[in-house]
């Protein structure tokens, strides 16, 4: 059998890190996939051992720009578990609000980029346009568009003023209508359905084998959500529900993410109402971290963030282990990509939302025997977009 290796990356930058995937193809079918990482390895776990407990929050915020409040929440949960600290009620609601705002912007970012990979740039522009007001709220509440620096051990760093609450509510109300329109447009589109349904299916067994988490697991009918299973912040004080789908394909992942946006808005709205009534501190002073070990979890937009810290009673962690959700979600490609065509691989890779950041890519396709260049990154994208065009034609859409 003649196999062709299609390298994706390292400067594919579809991922959190510039990563490298080698697709082994037989004709158009993918028969195997190999993952190489580390282009973005910055040694954060080691750096964390040289920082003060309080400084670590700023460091781990910079693990990932999109989940930049999920890691601090998970870390604070871990240290609070270690030292047995209970945070004030006001801080609980503020944590939930910032966390859910981040989920909103992250899911919209995914919808936009997924549209782009399929050749639907309209979806890309829409979704990113509607994401801007959320970043405005963030800038108003936290002082920065990304990297919020809101979390600290024992509470939060900044308060949300009562005047701001009204403005946030107004922006969210406007956003809700737009989101409904976007959700309808994406989920009712026959072309998107034809491209996404039945593609990259993950069964319940795959999810268990690889330990996948977050929307990837929930799209396959595995009902897990750390916010509900291991309540922290204000998640057990407000009404919301966990969204699951049964099919496990990329379309289900899109449905889960889009519907989760509405749940996030629900959580934020309830929290804002209660925040107006609750008076009190936003943080308690933590002077000393005793020796021991602690585990903290948080449901980031991509799944469960897991932090393990160990203290020996000094001012720095002895060990800080971090497991980001994409680390366990990426190996599921071995189950979802094999047997699919190359044109679909782009969207399957994007389907788990591996914290990707940009659209340009440096893929080149080589013949495995002769190392001759066959086609490069742009062609791969074209391949995916052409498939959409073909389906459009079959469904009777007119080319503009």
């Amino acid at each position: 059998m003649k196999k062709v290796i299609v390298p994706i990356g390292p400067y594919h930058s579809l991922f959190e890190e510039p990563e490298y995937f080698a697709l082994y193809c037989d004709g158009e079918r993918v028969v195997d996939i190999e993952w190489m990482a580390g282009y973005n390895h910055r040694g954060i776990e080691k750096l964390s051992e040289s920082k003060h407990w309080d400084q670590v929050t700023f460091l781990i915020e910079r693990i990932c720009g999109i989940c930049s409040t999920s890691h601090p929440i998970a870390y604070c949960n871990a240290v609070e578990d270690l030292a047995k600290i209970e945070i004030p009620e006001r801080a609980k609601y503020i944590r939930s609000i910032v966390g859910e705002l981040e989920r909103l912007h992250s899911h919209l970012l995914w919808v936009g980029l997924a549209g782009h990979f399929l050749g639907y740039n309209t979806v890309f522009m829409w979704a990113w346009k509607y994401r801007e007001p959320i970043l405005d709220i963030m800038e108003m509440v936290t002082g920065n568009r990304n990297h919020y620096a809101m979390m600290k051990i024992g509470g939060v760093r900044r308060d949300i003023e009562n005047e701001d609450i009204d403005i946030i509510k107004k922006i969210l109300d406007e956003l809700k209508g737009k989101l409904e329109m976007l959700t309808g447009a994406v989920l009712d589109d026959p072309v998107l359905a034809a491209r996404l349904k039945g593609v990259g299916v993950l069964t319940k067994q795959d999810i268990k084998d690889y330990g996948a988490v977050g929307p990837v697991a929930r799209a396959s009918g595995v009902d897990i959500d750390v916010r509900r299973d291991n309540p922290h912040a204000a998640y057990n004080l407000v009404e919301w529900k966990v969204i699951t789908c049964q099919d496990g394909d990329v379309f289900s992942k899109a449905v889960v993410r889009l519907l989760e946006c509405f749940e996030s808005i629900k959580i934020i709205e309830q929290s804002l109402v209660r925040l107006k009534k609750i008076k009190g501190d936003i943080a308690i002073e933590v002077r000393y971290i005793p020796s021991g070990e602690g585990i903290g979890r948080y449901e980031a937009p991509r799944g469960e963030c897991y932090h393990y810290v160990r203290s020996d009673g000094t001012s720095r962690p002895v060990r800080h282990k971090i497991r980001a959700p994409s680390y366990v979600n990426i190996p599921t490609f071995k189950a979802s990509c094999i047997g699919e065509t190359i044109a679909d691989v782009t969207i399957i890779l994007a389907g788990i939302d591996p914290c990707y950041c940009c659209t340009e890519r440096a893929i080149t396709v080589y013949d495995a025997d002769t190392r001759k260049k066959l086609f490069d990154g742009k062609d791969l994208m074209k391949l995916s977009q052409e498939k959409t065009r073909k389906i459009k034609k079959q469904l009777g859409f007119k080319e503009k």
Partner: protein
Amino acid sequence: MAIDLKTKALKKSLFVFHLSTGSCNNCDIEILDCLTPRFDIERFGMVLVGSVKHADVLLVTGIGTIKNAERIKKLYEQMPKPGFVVAIGACACTGGIFKEGYQMAGPIDKIIPVDVYIPGCPPKPEAMIAGIVKLLEKIK
């Protein structure tokens, strides 16, 4: 003195290539944000291209890890000249919070020559546009 024809043509429409070399991908998202309706840098003739061989400007983010250093040099060599390098974000400019890490080979100006620095963590899209405008002035 007559302006070099190549440089004059270059100024009308900058083609940029984006290179992430060990960043937290926040700067990368903000670069993409520049393309979307609110900031829309395409109205200034700037286009994000898919291959470094088409680019006039290299936007570099991240600390430049040891694993990446060789690849950054290679990509810089592939860029047609005259070409310019913009270091975006605190990591690319100075190493930022990751400076003491064992994977650090940068900052970027240790690996390739840099023309414009845009500090910030992450710099706002407005800051990036301002930085590129400064670059255009510099080309003059």
